[in-house]
């Protein structure tokens, strides 16, 4: 907006204020990543408590009520507060760099998305301190979730609502970033696969979250204000919630797995030193999975009683997803074929992912066989299936991505030695925990049971499963040690830490300057960095002269906008007990949010410019260090 305003002063803060106000996608990525890891630990502790309760028959470590709270919070936390945010973390940290952009399309909204997620997560977990965590399962089926005494569900409805808005914003932001912010020459079919999967996952977010939003509003209105959508006594229908939840819920699992697929599609070519086999089909398979993902949700409802026609149609539609997913599996295998495979930790996770996810995918197809699902449904077979795909797919992907991009994000590398320990403990623990659960399900053990009688043939398998979970627990502690050790160490890494980097993010100096690229790169093909390296160039070509760089200003508004919703949400929960306090909090919180929004649109914010002289100085310093 050069013609509307003079160059403005930059607005900057230090220390913690910098983190609260930052609009830099790299920092927001770090915020997402660490909040995600924090919630992963919480969800993991809940998982360990679940497994401890189930270690032997008729255990009385926790009560049925507490157990239900544990599983609900475990599932909700893991999906919404651990896996998604960690993926958002990598998307933020990496996607703009992969497409040669200086930032995301909406830095302000990026920050807003993070704070909404954060406060939503805090809200959910506050429920523990009010003595009532949600207890109706992460699926929150009505009318169990609308029972008046299940007050924890209030936290579920409002917490997820708030963090859901954040996800929606992140989704739109990535879509626009990827469409509009690409460097010259970065055609769509030259985008790295992680960027592609982020794109498709973001599109899924845009269409999948609205049904959840509506469902959560209805749940909230029914719990707090006496509406009757799900109340048979007033003509309500309990199946409506199930539809809304799963219309969201099934695409959600692809929102989780597609970016993980993207991560593997970056790592495997890098360490096999080979171009991704069948790049074009990989892209189309991703889109096809996303598209089909909207047409299969009824496979979670085979036993609800929708009738043989609906069940058959959705069974077949579900099976269809195996085809594009299979294409991906084989493409990865043939990327490895003929390669020069180097096994470091990131690669180990990627390689271990293939068989683990394969087993999960096969049980998925078995579940899609509707009449067989009458047996599997709501049994431990399902628990085994989804942990095989989620842990063996998404969590492996997150770990692989963590080892792979840690040097880029923090300028330091995680210890490979600790990494091997972490990997093997996790790998063994994972299979030990979840493989026996297939059989538990077939032997008649329902899921979500807080205990079981002995003499049903389930004791040994449960015991094995619990042991496995603790392997994963130890492995997680090793990971934490590795992270702390990396931060304490003084060894800084060089750019292109792995030496085999193929995509643009590896051309950047570490730590990456806030404007990312001093000069926007010129992209010459898929894996442009690799192409340049093969052509003997040390640097990628650039598309522009060094010039002033426009940057967005930091802002406190996103934080307060989210805080306002958080306060209003608490008010909505409290108005059940105390009308005055409740409604004043609602009023105060919403006022805070709306005033923040108003300020945002009232105060012009044109950002500021980093002068050319400074960019040149930075460039010179980096080149003198001989790093780029």
């Amino acid at each position, binding site marked *: 907006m050069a013609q509307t305003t003079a160059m403005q002063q930059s607005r900057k803060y230090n220390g913690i204020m910098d983190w609260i106000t930052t609009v830099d996608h790299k920092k927001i990525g770090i915020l997402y990543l660490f909040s995600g890891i924090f919630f992963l630990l919480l969800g993991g502790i809940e998982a360990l408590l679940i497994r401890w309760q189930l270690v032997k028959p008729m255990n009385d470590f926790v*009560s*049925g*009520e507490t*157990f239900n709270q544990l599983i609900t919070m475990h599932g909700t936390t893991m999906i919404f507060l651990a896996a998604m945010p960690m993926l958002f973390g990598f998307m933020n940290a990496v996607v703009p760099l992969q497409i040669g952009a200086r930032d995301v399309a909406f830095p302000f909204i990026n920050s807003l998305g993070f704070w909404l997620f954060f406060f939503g997560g805090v809200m959910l977990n506050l429920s523990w301190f009010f003595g009532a965590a949600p*207890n109706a399962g992460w699926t929150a*089926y009505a*009318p*169990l979730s609308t029972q008046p005494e299940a007050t924890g569900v209030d936290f579920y409805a409002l917490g997820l609502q708030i963090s859901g808005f954040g996800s929606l914003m992140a989704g739109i932001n990535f879509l626009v970033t990827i469409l509009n912010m690409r460097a010259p020459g970065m055609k769509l079919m030259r985008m790295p696969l992680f960027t592609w999967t982020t794109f498709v996952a973001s599109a899924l977010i845009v269409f999948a979250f609205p049904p959840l939003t509506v469902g959560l509003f209805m749940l909230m209105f029914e719990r707090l204000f006496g509406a009757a959508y799900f109340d048979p006594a007033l003509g309500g229908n*309990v199946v409506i919630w199930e539809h809304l939840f799963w219309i969201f819920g099934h695409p959600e699992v692809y929102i989780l797995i597609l970016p993980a697929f993207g991560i593997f599609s970056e790592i495997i070519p890098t360490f*096999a030193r*080979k*171009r991704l*086999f*069948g790049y074009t*089909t990989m892209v189309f398979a991703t889109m096809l999975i996303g598209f089909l993902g909207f047409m299969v949700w009824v496979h979670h409802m085979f*036993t*609800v009683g929708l009738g*043989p026609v609906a069940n*058959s149609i959705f*069974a077949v539609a579900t099976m269809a997803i195996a085809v594009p997913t*299979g294409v991906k*599996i*084989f*493409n990865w*295998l*043939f990327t*490895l*074929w003929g390669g*020069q495979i*180097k*096994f470091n930790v990131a690669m180990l996770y990627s390689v271990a992912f*293939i*068989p683990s996810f*394969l087993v999960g995918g*096969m049980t998925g*197809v*078995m579940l899609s*066989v*509707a*009449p*067989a*699902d*009458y*047996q599997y449904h*709501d049994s431990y077979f399902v628990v085994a299936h989804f942990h095989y795909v989620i842990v063996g797919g998404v969590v492996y992907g997150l770990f692989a991505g963590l080892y792979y991009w840690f040097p880029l994000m923090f300028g330091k590398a995680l210890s490979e030695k600790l990494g091997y320990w972490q990997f*093997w403990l996790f*790998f*063994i623990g994972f*299979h030990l925990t979840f493989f026996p659960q297939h059989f538990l399900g*077939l*032997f*008649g053990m*329902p899921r979500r049971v807080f205990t079981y009688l002995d*003499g*049903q*043939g389930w004791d*040994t*398998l449960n015991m*094995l499963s619990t042991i496995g979970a603790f392997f994963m627990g130890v492995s997680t502690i090793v990971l934490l040690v590795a992270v702390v050790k990396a931060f304490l160490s003084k060894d800084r890494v060089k750019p292109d830490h792995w030496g085999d980097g193929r995509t643009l993010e590896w051309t950047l100096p570490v730590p990456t300057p806030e404007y990312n690229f001093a000069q926007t790169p010129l992209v010459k093909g898929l894996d442009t960095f690799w192409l340049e390296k*093969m052509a003997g160039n040390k640097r990628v070509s650039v598309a522009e002269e060094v010039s002033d760089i426009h940057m967005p200003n930091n802002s406190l508004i996103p934080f307060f906008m989210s805080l306002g919703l958080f306060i209003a949400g608490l008010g909505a929960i409290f108005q059940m007990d105390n009308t005055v306090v409740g409604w004043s909090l609602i009023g105060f919180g919403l006022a805070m949010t709306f005033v923040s929004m108003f300020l945002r649109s009232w105060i012009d914010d044109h950002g500021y410019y980093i002068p050319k002289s400074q960019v040149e100085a930075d460039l010179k310093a980096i080149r003198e260090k001989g790093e780029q």
Partner: protein
Amino acid sequence: MKSFKKLLFGIVPMMMFAVLLSGCGQEGLSALKPMGEGAELQLRIILISLAIMLFVLIIVSVIYVYVLMKFRRKDESIPKQVEGSSTLEMIWTVVPIILLIILAVPTITTTVELAKAKEAKKEEEINVTANLYWWEFEYPEAGVVTGQELVIPVGKRVGINLTSKDVIHSFWVPALSGKTDTNPGLDNEMWLHANEPGTYYGKCAELCGPSHALMDFKVIALEQEEYDQWLADMKAKQDENGEKLVADNTNLTTGEQVYVESCLSCHGGGKVAPSLTNFGDREWLAGYLENNEDNLKEWIRDPQEKKQGALMPGFNEGQISNEELDALVDFLYEQKID
């Protein structure tokens, strides 16, 4: 990376061993030991799908192991950059499609077969109503209501109507058939079939509250004649109990009196709480405990202690003295039909 292979091939046998230890699961409970037509149909299709999966698994594993052994990094040379291969990609698109078509056909036929509840209902019809942590079984034709134990005749498909009084539950008897949800305000139907007489374990398969895990029930299959006899006896006993306890409330034993005062209002029709008409015959108390005097007394004193969230109120000594409790327990164990 030798350890990788070693471990991979170490874990699998270990787990196989564990599974062998437990065989195919408990008789009368495991879906892998079907005892009726429904579960047999389901096991059949489970095995079909498993076979297809194993086929895919083997192919992928062969490529996988070969690739990982053959293409480790040996030197710093740059391998050939391959773009793809349309022939290969064609193969791994078409072959899975064929496999899935093979799977889809029996899927659809089995779904249709399992949906034939209407036909079954013409022969025999039972209404199942799920309640917070107990099951109500009604034989509409005979006018009998019972709870916790579902008695069915062997050798034929019994039509079942399912609904719920409160939240969603799910009716599952793994050895006889897969589950069907019981939705409040909505009716569902299914059929159940047992090959031979016996007791089969039933589970509630949808999270319904703190005692979801304890919402077990049993299906008892009888030969047709025995079944008819049982139904007639139940009917007679139920009528007798009803008439005696309601009409003539002067001449009651202590046990009867306590029962009338404290239990009848809920347990009477078998619709608010489980019918106790054949309580003395039952092997289980509250669906999952051994049915003995101690458990029964503890249950009456404090049901929530055994089933968190159960709706039955507890009765302290002020309400039912120890002597009265003894008498009540005696009375309850007299409630038999054979």
